[in-house]
């Protein structure tokens, strides 16, 4: 799917909270085998952080790279499943904080881990139709797994945002995108429940792999490309294993995956996951590099993007912190402090 007007990424920004809990620490508390944990460590938000505050940091970093005025944004769209309010938009608080209000479209988007990439696709359409010069799409989460559940090892906090504008001003041009969704009951959370549930037998084959593979192949079919045409690929990262396996099935060699594979160090940031991986590739890419990116959200669906980097990356990259600098800004905490920060202890 291509818009009428050619568009691209004018600026991008990321944020990851500084606290980390090691998977071996979670395994120690629940008596699980520390050798069988899925990743090394995951990010944990501080007690004064939530999806709003993380999105504000992301938006400010994206604006620094784009070099535009906040008032030029005609959309502030936030994809998240960890809204601080059940009713009251996250996006209006963020838009107000970055001074993009009041003539701006603000909305929260929902689709498990795919909520972020669909805001980016909507921004492509909003700018590509000529309705807006610039639009900001953010994927952010402070994900929680039920204590002792398998998801507790990976559910993490962080995100990334993309300001879409005309391709002439872009640091990377969006060549095309495709969406692929079906009704699949692999993961859900009902109203008023604190933690999500997952359908064990639906995790993996009929959900992640089916959607990521079909969506990715559809985009490559549309463009007449194949894995050899790309320098980097990013796939949604619920753990370390899945993106590596899906890349192998699609025919992307491991060396094209590793620069965008950050889940081993920060965990699964849900709506932020694929978008943070893409940002970590933009942090090191050069003019002419082609990047392939596919998200995945339970429920279920994928969005795929084909992106080509321009020479404008060189001037803008250094205007905000890289993914790596946030990964390296870390303070390890134990399960007790983690439980307190995540309000698992009621006062």
């Amino acid at each position, binding site marked *: 799917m291509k818009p009428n007007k050619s568009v691209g990424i004018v600026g991008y920004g990321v944020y990851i909270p500084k606290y980390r809990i090691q998977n071996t620490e979670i395994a120690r508390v629940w008596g699980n085998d520390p050798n069988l944990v899925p990743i090394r460590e995951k990010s944990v938000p501080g007690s*004064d*952080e939530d999806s709003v505050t993380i999105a504000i940091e992301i938006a400010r970093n994206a604006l620094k790279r784009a070099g535009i005025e906040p008032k030029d944004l005609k959309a502030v769209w936030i994809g998240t499943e960890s809204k601080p309010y059940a009713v009251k938009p996250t996006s209006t608080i963020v838009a107000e904080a970055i001074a993009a209000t009041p003539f701006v479209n603000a909305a929260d988007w929902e689709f498990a881990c795919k909520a972020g990439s669909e805001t980016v696709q909507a921004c492509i359409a909003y700018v590509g139709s000529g309705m807006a010069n610039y639009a900001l799409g953010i994927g952010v989460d402070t994900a929680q797994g039920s204590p002792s559940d398998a998801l507790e090892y990976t559910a993490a906090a962080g995100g990334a945002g993309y300001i879409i504008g005309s391709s002439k001003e872009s640091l990377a041009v969006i060549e095309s995108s495709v969406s692929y969704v079906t009704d699949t009951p692999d993961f859900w959370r009902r109203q008023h429940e604190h933690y999500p549930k997952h359908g064990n037998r639906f995790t993996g084959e009929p959900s992640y792999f089916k959607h990521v593979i079909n969506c990715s192949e559809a985009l490559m079919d549309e463009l007449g490309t194949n894995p050899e045409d790309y320098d980097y690929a990013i796939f949604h990262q619920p753990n370390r294993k899945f993106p590596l396996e899906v890349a192998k099935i699609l025919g992307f060699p491991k060396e094209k995956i590793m620069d965008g594979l950050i889940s081993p160090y920060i965990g699964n940031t849900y709506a932020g996951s694929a978008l943070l991986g893409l940002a970590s590739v933009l942090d090191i890419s050069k003019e002419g590099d082609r990047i392939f990116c596919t998200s995945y959200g339970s429920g279920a669906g994928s969005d795929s993007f084909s992106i080509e980097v321009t020479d404008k990356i060189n001037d803008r990259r250094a205007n905000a912190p*890289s993914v790596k600098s946030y990964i390296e800004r870390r303070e390890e905490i134990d399960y007790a402090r983690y439980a307190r920060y995540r309000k698992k202890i009621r006062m």
Partner: protein
Amino acid sequence: MNVPRHWREQVRRYRLLGSKCCDCEEISFPYRLVCPKCRSRKCEDYALIGKGKILSFTDINSPPQEHKYNMPYAVALIGLVEGPIITAQITDARAEELEIGMDVEMVTRKIMEYNEDGIICYGYKFRPIVKYAHP
């Protein structure tokens, strides 16, 4: 829970929005209707860039109930680059990590929540500047 009061102040707290005197250019935070230097009544909104230095700080170990989730935390007197001196909570660092003269930056964080069903108040805090280098 005073929702109207928070709503009136929220934009200034989210963005660190102060005022600038149209006559003598004195910059103030919080916002002033009357310039503290020349008493002029012509003041306009002025967005501070959110950078400054720690002039003094203290460790808070017995905070009010609504800040208990954050304890222990530091409160600092910060000299902003534009001139005003403000008092703010420090986040992402404990008192033992701070020094007088340290460069800090503004960040918008959760200040307090009114129980489980009330509003969430966001506003400025400061933290040691996130250092970054690019490959």
